[in-house]
Every structure is written in C-alpha cells, then in structure tokens.
C-alpha cells in the first residue's frame, strides 16, 4: 500500500475541517478527489504532503507516518503541484524546473541536469519556453513549468518505491486542451508504477481520467470507489446540490455529467 490515510482528523483552532477520514491507494492508481468548496480537499492534500501535521489519526506513506520523514526524504517520494505559485523574481523556465533536482542531488544522484530539465519541459509541451522568464508567462504556461518541475523531481530521485504525484487543483488556470494534457501526463505517470492524487473541480475531467473517485463532503468521505458507481444523480444532488444526469461517453464509455443547474 503506497498511501494509507487512517482516521485523519484536522482541526484549525476550534474548526474541524476533516474528521475521521479513511482511505488508501496503491501504486498504479490515479485517484481524483472531488467535493464542494469547503469540503476539506486542500486540507487533505496538505496533510498527505506532510505540510501540516495531523491533529488526529495518521497518514502513512510507504507504511511510514509522513511525520517521521524529513523534508528531504519526503521530497524523494512525493511531489506537489500547487494551485498557484507566485514568483516575482525573473527565473527562467529552465531555472524553475532545475529546482526540482535539489532533493535528488542531495541524495547523491549523479544527474545530467540539462537533459533532465529539457526532457521534462518537452513532456509538458513547453520546450520552446526554456529561456523565457516565468513571471512573464501566461497562467497556463506557468502551471506547466511547475508541472515539469514536479515531474523532474520524481524522475530524477532514486527509486525508493512507488512515487506519489499530488495535484492540488492543477487545471484551475488552464484551457480545456491543456486540462486534458495535465491529466493525461498524471495518468501516464501512474502507469510507470507510481500513483497520483488530484483534487479536481471539473467532474467530467475527474470521470475521464481517474481510476477511483473519493468524494469529500463536510470533512468526511461521502464516497470512495470506482468512478462509474460513484457518479450518480443522487450523489450529485446530495453532495454538490446539483441537478444533473449521467450519460455514458459514446467513445470512451466513461461517465459524462450533464449539469442542468443547482438544486
């Protein structure tokens, strides 16, 4: 088991954001986390990444509590693509992606940095932006620079078991084609024996790429299972207050959510 979240409770002051959340995932899986605003998705991601210590319960990464890992040990095993990153200084795309090599270098890996960075930039389709200043790029281009940084961090690190790619609303600033591209890259990452967990707002995007769906509502897990079984009109009404029909995609057979409006 790559990741096990056991009875996780997160509290900020007197506000309980997550209570007794349980779920786990294996290598090879792409799990989409969906839920309405304020359901605790970002908090769950922060707890899994080791950024915020759990108030109660544990998060196990490769059977070890994340709290027991040092920052560097965690960085060799998981990477996080944040919702948005503010960078005021004039780093080039190359330089930002290069930052992803830090933990692998510290771990003593012998790396060919220019090749690794070039390959990661090409993988997210922005090889031509290598020497452009990141603050001058569009939101979508910036997001892909950071995705390349995450990929390089995982690909350059010595293999200490399956790796975890954590995406926190990765597609918020992307146009539709690039949203698909990011999810496809995450999916390809999982097929190489790794896993990815993505907080997604677009239910159709989640349905198109995820192997499994975790629906969060009010700080708890409302559904955890295959995509097809989870997305029902009843659940959408219950959790999202959404009036919607579920169709089957004529070509892929995956569920397609047809939204009629709020309830």
């Amino acid at each position, binding site marked *: 088991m790559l990741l096990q979240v056991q009875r996780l409770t997160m509290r900020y002051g007197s506000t309980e954001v997550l209570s007794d959340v349980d779920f786990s995932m294996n290598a090879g899986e792409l799990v989409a986390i969906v839920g309405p605003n304020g359901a605790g998705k970002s908090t769950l991601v922060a707890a899994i990444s080791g950024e915020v210590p759990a108030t109660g319960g544990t998060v196990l990464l490769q059977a070890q509590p994340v709290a027991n890992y040092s*920052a560097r040990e965690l*960085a060799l095993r998981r990477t996080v693509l*944040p919702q948005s990153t503010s960078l*005021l200084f004039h780093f080039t795309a190359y*330089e930002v992606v290069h930052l*992803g090599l830090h933990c692998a270098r510290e771990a003593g890996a012998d790396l060919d940095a220019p090749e*690794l960075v070039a390959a990661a930039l090409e993988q997210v389709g922005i090889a031509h932006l290598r020497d452009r200043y990141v603050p001058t790029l569009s939101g979508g281009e910036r997001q892909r620079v950071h995705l390349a940084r995450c990929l390089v961090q995982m690909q350059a690190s010595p293999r200490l078991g399956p790796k975890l790619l954590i995406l926190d609303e990765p597609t918020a600033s992307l146009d539709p084609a690039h949203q698909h591209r990011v999810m496809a890259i995450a999916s390809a990452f999982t097929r190489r024996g790794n896993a990815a967990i993505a907080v997604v707002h677009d239910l159709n995007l989640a349905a198109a790429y995820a192997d499994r769906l975790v629906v969060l509502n009010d700080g708890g897990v409302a559904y955890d299972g295959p995509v097809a079984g989870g997305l029902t009109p009843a659940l959408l009404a219950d959790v999202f207050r959404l009036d919607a029909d579920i169709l089957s995609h004529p070509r892929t057979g995956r569920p397609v959510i047809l939204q009629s409006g709020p309830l």
Partner: protein
Amino acid sequence: MTLSSAMKRSKPGYRARLAAMAPRERRAAAVVAGCAALLVLSLFLALGIGAVSISPGVIGRLILNALGAEFVWETETRDALVFWSIRVPRVAAGCLVGAALALAGATMQGIFRNPLADPALIGVSSGAALAAVAVIVVGGGMVGTLPPEIRAFALPVAALAGGLTATLIVYRLGSVGGQIMAATTLLAGVAITAIAQAGIGFLIFLSDEQQLRDLSFWTLGSVAGLNWSLLLPAAVLMAGPILLLPRLAGALNAMLLGERESFHLGHDPQRVKRLAIGLSAVAVGGAVSISGVIGFVGLVVPHIVRLLAGPDHRWLLPGTALLGAGLFLLADLLARMIVLPAELPIGVVTALVGGPFFIWLLVRRRDWG
C-alpha cells in the same frame, strides 16, 4: 525523448553540455568573476590612495615582507606604518561591512520574496543605531567613568545588542504559532524602524554640541579612525555570516517559489528562515557596530548583481558579497577624497550614488514590462 531515456543516456561531451546549459549560467559565472576583479582593483586603489600614496608595487612588497620576505625588498618604515596601522584596518573594515550589508540585503530579499527588503527594513540597523545614540547622549557620563579600553567597546557592544534586540522583537512579532509570516515581519520591521528613528530624533533633541558631532557618525556612517582592537570583534561577527550565508543559496532559490513549495522540494523552510534571519542580523549588527548606519548597500548591490547575473542565489550571493566589498571601498575612497583634507560620512556617498542609481533601476525595470 522521455525522461527515463534522458536518465539512461550517457553524458554528452563538455561542449554539448555547455550548449544545453541555460545561457544565463555561463553569464552569471562571468559576472561573479567580474565582481572579484573589481574587488581586487578597489583593494589596490583603497590601499594605495590617501595622504601618503603607496604604489601597487610597494603594496605587494609590504605584503610579501609581512609574510617573511624582508631580505628581498626594502620598504620605508613610514609606508609600512601607514599601511598596516591605518590603511589595512580601514580597508578590511570596508570589505567586511560592504560584504555583510550587501549579503544581508540579498538574503532578506530572498527570504521575504521581496526585492525591496533590506537590513534597514527589518529594523536591525535602526535598533543598533538607537542603542549607540542612547549610550552617547544618556550614558555619556556613565561611560566616561569607565577605563579607556572598556570605553572603546561600549558603543560597538551597545550597537550590536540594539541590533539583535530589534531583530528578536521583529522576529517574535512576525511569527504566528512558530511560523514566520514574511509580510508581517516586514511590516513589524518598518514599525520598529519608525520607533527607533523617533527615539534617535528625541535623543538628538536632548544632545549638546559635542554629542551632535558624535551622533552624525552613527546616523551617517563611517569607517574612518578604525584600529585593530575595534575592528577584530566586529570582524569575527561579520566573517561568520559572510562565509555561511552563501551555503543557503539552494534553499533561498526554492524559497522564492514560496514556503510550502520549498518544503515540497525537500527544504525545511522554518530552519532556513531562522538561519537566514539570524545570520543576517549578526552580520548587520557587527557592521553597524563599527561603521554606523550606511544605507543603500543592502538594497542596490544585490539589484545590480541580479540585473547582470539573474536571481539564482548560487551566483547572486557570492557576487553580491564581492561587489558589496568592492563598491564599499570605492565609496569610502570617494568619501575621503571629495572634501580633502576633511572626510564626508560614507553614508552620504552611498545615498547620493545609490539613490539615483536605484531610481534608474526602477525606470529600467518598467521598460521590461
């Protein structure tokens, strides 16, 4: 080409690697080398020019003689005396103060992700100056009764204590639940600076003629009249951070993306912040204790290096330390030459040169869009 194939492929030759390298990296290395060359040039100028001028050849001989080569060249006793007891302490102080202020500025800008951060902004300089001014004005009678050897230390020690106190207050105000909030820290620094300046203003109002003259040293800065015994304690304080801060380069680079991101990349942002702020405070405290408050070095020098070499701290920090030392020596040279036989406070020179330069930087930056 996939990532894994890039991993497996054998390393390309040196030329190919150089071609694949970001062009800025080569340029950055050249900029740092240029900063080092400027420092060497400034060293010879600052050591040679003055009431007694000493040629580069003589400087070389004096240094070799001190290393035990007296039998090779003769040097004049007067030159040796001026060189070792007046020029060298002043130049050493200039190098260290310039490097310390510039490096602290670059570090603060990285930690606070704010290109306008400066040691003066987090209150270190003003706190140190306030403590020194208080000793001159209020503690004057008390200090006067102390033996002269201890009296010489009273002001630097007070300045250092004041600087560290200000930093600790700002640090406490800026941390919430063990986390240092960059924006809050900066604002706390602005508030502490304002309070310290008000205190200095009040003490100036209370002071008499002679005290006013002493005060101008602390508010405008100078490295004149330094001897070895005054310099050594401060030199130790500054040398530590100057050597240690560049080791934080990688962590500061990651910090520019944000604290969370730096943690995701494998750094410990809390530890990095504690180290960076603590080392900067010690460096600036040491600098202010022998030179008073000297503005613009911490702001302008990192900007020049960043413009030429880019924001990568692995090049920025060494370049900043070298250029800070070199430019400080040149500014000090100007301060001693403009109004011969008197001397201008160096803070006046750095502000006069640094202010317009900074405006030029801002205008240029606007052109970049």
